[in-house]
């Protein structure tokens, strides 16, 4: 069933969010809200050198300070071997995770942790950090991706051999990996083109900018079992990483998910958690660690800064004949930029015969890049969708029409391999064409741009339990932290399957010991995968309800059907029975077979790819270079919007983050390799007054692989904005901005270059 034509009772309703009241009253417990008696304060010492060999660390004075209960360095963590870890969309290496959590031999960026303390108060912990003596040999550093790729550049990791190249290089370099995706023959394709546009783009690293800094409490009992409370995008991930980094059994760690104040990909790895666990194990006391905002900026993952070249050729009529991209992404201090995903997604909205994308994953002396909402895709799309806009203008074709002519449809072979099933890209383009925004008049110094975006969306491992209480209420236990409203969506799906009122369904997130393994919340998977698990678990409950009814009626289970929250005889042949409600059956459960509990643990396949197209209007102040976004509309195929308000929120949030990325966000490093703007004052994310109300249009082309047609929606909306803003700026002032951010000084300089 694909959900088409179904008459839903709950799917698509804008119900009150189950976590809403606690969040608006301040009752909800986020990472830093948890406390235990006898708790110590844990703090870390961070390197202020971007690249330095750690010759020695003397912790003696810190140890001797009254109130200090433990001091740890890399020497206290096992030196674990290389092993691939799968947290998010891209693999990483547990050894690198360990070295990122605590520098071993070398500090690789300003902000890299070199030691940690646990003390009876924050001020003692701070004082102890000042007493740790680290003897550094300062090394030359490299921040820029192109500089890092040059022969003779300072080596960030001295044993790093480029992967994906034959023959394997003999010498180490900062290029961790080369990836390539091919379809057809681009050389032949460009020969058929009447017009070819090629352009180079650069972008700066940007931070996910979640409101809640990382926070954890760890408490170890005398038998070696540790309880961990923290906010993350996956408590099973926290458990796996802590166990691996500290050499513990997985069952020795029980991780409780706190409410999470935003992640956007930035919380799919560990920073403080293994250190808090280790400090707690060493001291036998609970240890709490909370980052400051400055630490979040200096120590946690931004997404990559890049240098990208994109080349697209087309016929006079606007048929694209070939497209190429070369993408170099900063990985930070350890391999693992999302460059592969950039290569896969760059041209995915288009039905192309000839595509070649080449990517380089490059280490530099910056914090390790972490996933950020559709990791890698917004960057590649910025370059590709900007070149498309330029190509359309060169061909004198409306940019929207150029996209329509080349749009991917069901059956299109994606540049990265698979053939698309039913997808809704064309429908988003049509919705843009039909939207009043698209044809609204513009004033002087105003411009309009459009851009599209793609994300493949993910499935994966997910568990759910549906317990029927004795009064007919239901508790749905889920395995993924709720970041984007999953509790509301899961409750709606459970209520739909069970046929009961949404008010009777209470969704909660289980901890690692109470619910089956579930992957991180990421990859836009939860409404899809967790939804499938919930539908299956609720279906399991329905099967049990029918069996219990059959026992009461003394008929075969096949003789009972479940409709609108009631058991009914399948036909008059079964007999004449009054319908039994879920609550009636629940009340009798103790006497007829015991508790009713449904469960599902699945590996969800068949995530539906997502497409979006955005319209952006800007006005540019030609004297100051300031860009104001006047109007913005985000259109996206959601497959099926389970809770439309949350889908709209995702579209608005992604657009807001993308606009910030386009206009003013950037890390500013000095020549000394130190970060100069580790705070929201000078790391300029948009504030509410910077943005117009972001209009949304949800297109629904159901995903046939999900019982209700769901596609992931969280990541696509951050993919188009960078190019949508750049295309709008070009339309306003006739200048193509190929370097992000499009901050006022850059716009003014570009205007002067043109004049």
């Amino acid at each position, binding site marked *: 069933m694909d959900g088409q034509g179904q008459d839903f009772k709950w799917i698509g309703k804008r119900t009150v969010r189950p976590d809403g009241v606690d969040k608006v009253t301040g009752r909800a417990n986020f990472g830093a809200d948890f406390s235990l008696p006898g708790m110590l304060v844990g703090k870390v010492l961070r390197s202020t050198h971007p690249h330095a060999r750690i010759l020695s660390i003397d912790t003696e004075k810190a140890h001797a300070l009254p109130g200090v209960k433990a001091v740890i360095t890399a020497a206290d963590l096992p030196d674990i071997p290389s092993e691939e870890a799968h947290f998010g969309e891209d693999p990483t290496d547990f050894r690198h995770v360990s070295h990122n959590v605590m520098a071993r031999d070398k500090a690789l960026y300003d902000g890299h942790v070199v030691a940690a303390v646990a003390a009876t108060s924050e001020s003692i912990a701070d004082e102890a950090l000042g007493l740790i003596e680290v003897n550094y040999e300062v090394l030359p550093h490299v921040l820029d991706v192109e500089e890092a790729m040059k022969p003779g550049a300072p080596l960030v990791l001295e044993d790093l051999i480029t992967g994906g190249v034959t023959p394997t290089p003999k010498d180490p370099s900062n290029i961790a990996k080369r990836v390539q995706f091919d379809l057809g023959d681009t050389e032949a394709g460009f020969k058929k083109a009447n017009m070819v546009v090629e352009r180079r783009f650069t972008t700066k690293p940007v931070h996910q900018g979640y409101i809640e800094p990382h926070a954890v409490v760890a408490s170890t009992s005398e038998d070696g079992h540790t309880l961990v409370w923290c906010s993350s995008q996956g408590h099973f991930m926290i458990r796996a990483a802590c166990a691996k980094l500290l050499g513990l059994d997985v069952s020795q760690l029980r991780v409780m998910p706190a409410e999470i104040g935003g992640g956007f990909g930035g919380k799919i790895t560990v920073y403080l958690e293994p250190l808090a666990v280790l400090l707690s194990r060493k001291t036998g006391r609970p240890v709490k660690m909370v980052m400051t905002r400055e630490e979040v900026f200096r120590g946690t993952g931004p997404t990559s800064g890049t240098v990208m070249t994109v080349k697209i050729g087309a016929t006079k009529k606007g048929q694209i004949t070939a497209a190429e991209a070369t993408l170099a992404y900063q990985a930070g201090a350890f391999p693992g930029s999302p460059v592969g995903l950039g290569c896969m997604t760059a041209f995915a909205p288009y039905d192309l015969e000839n595509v070649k994308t080449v990517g380089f994953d490059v280490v530099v002396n910056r914090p390790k890049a972490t996933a950020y909402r559709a990791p890698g895709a917004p960057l590649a799309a910025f370059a590709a969708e900007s070149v498309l806009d330029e190509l359309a203008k060169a061909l004198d074709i409306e940019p929207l029409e150029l996209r329509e002519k080349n749009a991917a449809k069901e059956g299109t072979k994606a540049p990265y391999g698979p053939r698309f099933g039913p997808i809704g890209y064309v429908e988003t383009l049509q919705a843009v064409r039909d939207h009043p925004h698209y044809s609204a008049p513009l004033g002087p110094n105003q411009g309009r741009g459009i851009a599209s975006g793609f994300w493949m969306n993910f499935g994966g491992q997910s568990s759910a339990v549906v317990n029927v209480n004795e009064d007919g209420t239901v508790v749905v236990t889920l395995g993924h932290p709720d970041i984007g409203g999953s509790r509301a969506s899961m409750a709606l799906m459970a209520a739909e399957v069970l046929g009961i009122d949404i008010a009777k369904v209470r969704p909660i997130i289980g901890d690692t010991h109470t619910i089956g393994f579930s992957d991180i919340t990421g990859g836009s998977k939860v409404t899809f995968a967790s939804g499938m698990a919930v539908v299956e678990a609720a279906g399991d409950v329905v099967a049990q309800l029918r069996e219990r009814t059959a026992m009461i009626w003394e008929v075969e289970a096949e003789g009972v059907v479940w409709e609108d929250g009631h058991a009914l005889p399948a036909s008059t042949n079964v007999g004449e029975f009054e319908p039994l409600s879920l609550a009636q059956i629940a009340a009798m459960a103790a006497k007829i077979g015991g508790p009713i509990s449904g469960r599902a643990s699945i590996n969800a396949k068949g995530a539906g790819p997502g497409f979006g197209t955005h319209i952006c209007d800007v006005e540019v102040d030609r004297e100051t*270079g*300031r860009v104001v976004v006047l109007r913005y509309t985000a259109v996206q195929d959601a497959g099926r919007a389970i809770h439309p308000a949350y889908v709209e929120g995702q579209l608005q949030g992604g657009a807001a983050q993308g606009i910030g990325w386009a206009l003013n966000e950037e890390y500013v490093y000095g020549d000394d390799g130190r970060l100069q703007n580790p705070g929201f004052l000078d790391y*300029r994310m948009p504030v509410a*007054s910077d943005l117009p109300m972001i209009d949304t249009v949800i297109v629904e082309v159901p995903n046939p692989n999900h019982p209700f047609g769901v596609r992931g929606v969280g990541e696509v909306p951050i993919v188009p904005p960078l190019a949508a803003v750049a295309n709008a700026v070009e339309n306003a002032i006739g200048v193509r901005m190929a370097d992000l951010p499009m901050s*006022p*000084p850059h716009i003014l300089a570009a205007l002067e270059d043109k004049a």
Partner: protein
Amino acid sequence: MNAMRYEAPGSIDEVVALLAAADGDSRILAGGTDLLVQMQSGFVKPGLIVDVKKIAEATTITAEDGGFRIGAAVCGAEIGEHADLKEAWPGVVEAAELIGSVQIQARASLGGNLCNASPAADSVPALIAAGAVCSIAGPKGRREVPVADIATGPGETSLGTGEVVVSIHLPAQSPRSGDAYLRFIPRTEMDIAVVGAAINLSLDENGQCSAARVVLGAVAPTALLVTEAADALIGGPVDDAALERLDAAARAACRPIDDKRGTADYRTKVSGVLARRAAGIALERARSNS
């Protein structure tokens, strides 16, 4: 561990006595919107904090000599709600209201903005353009000092040991006069001026500019009173040609630095733009104030 002492006396004399008796670093707490942030990030570790918000003189706005005396600890929100003050000195009030968010406005003060001595302080150029004068209390008694003479460099002031700014006096605004302040930030709120420009100008009965003060912020170690820029306006109509001369004079006076908030080149260009735009607003106000 260093213990910190907090005092909130009820009179300026007590403040002066506390400061005189203190050893080590002592700080005045008005709104605290700079001080608390600096303490939080470990830049300062004062041994004594003297809160001046319990002192009437430092927390009230009173009419005086046709102008206004504003207590050094009066918050931005109160300044913004003072109708008479706003009518007389709209540029000063706008500048005070630009400091921080709504929450910050409930705390941030002119005294704090002045004594923090940031080159980018929003209220300082507007106060200097208005010809405001501080009342300072110290171990040797009271003295009056123009606002322009307080900041001597980033984070540095001419205040002597144990001295405290008690209030700021804005003179009576002349007839046919108007003031304005504009700042440039990449965002709309929650940011620090990349450039600030304050203008206070007067017209004669024929509509010619008879007096002007032009002050630029964030383009030098302290706010700059640019007499060449004022001269560009004085003695003629405030027309396009005068505004072009103002723009050029403002740019010529800038001595900015490159930093995370903007380049020297960019600041210089925008200082001229803002001066011109602020002059346009001040002119409209002067015309309607006759």
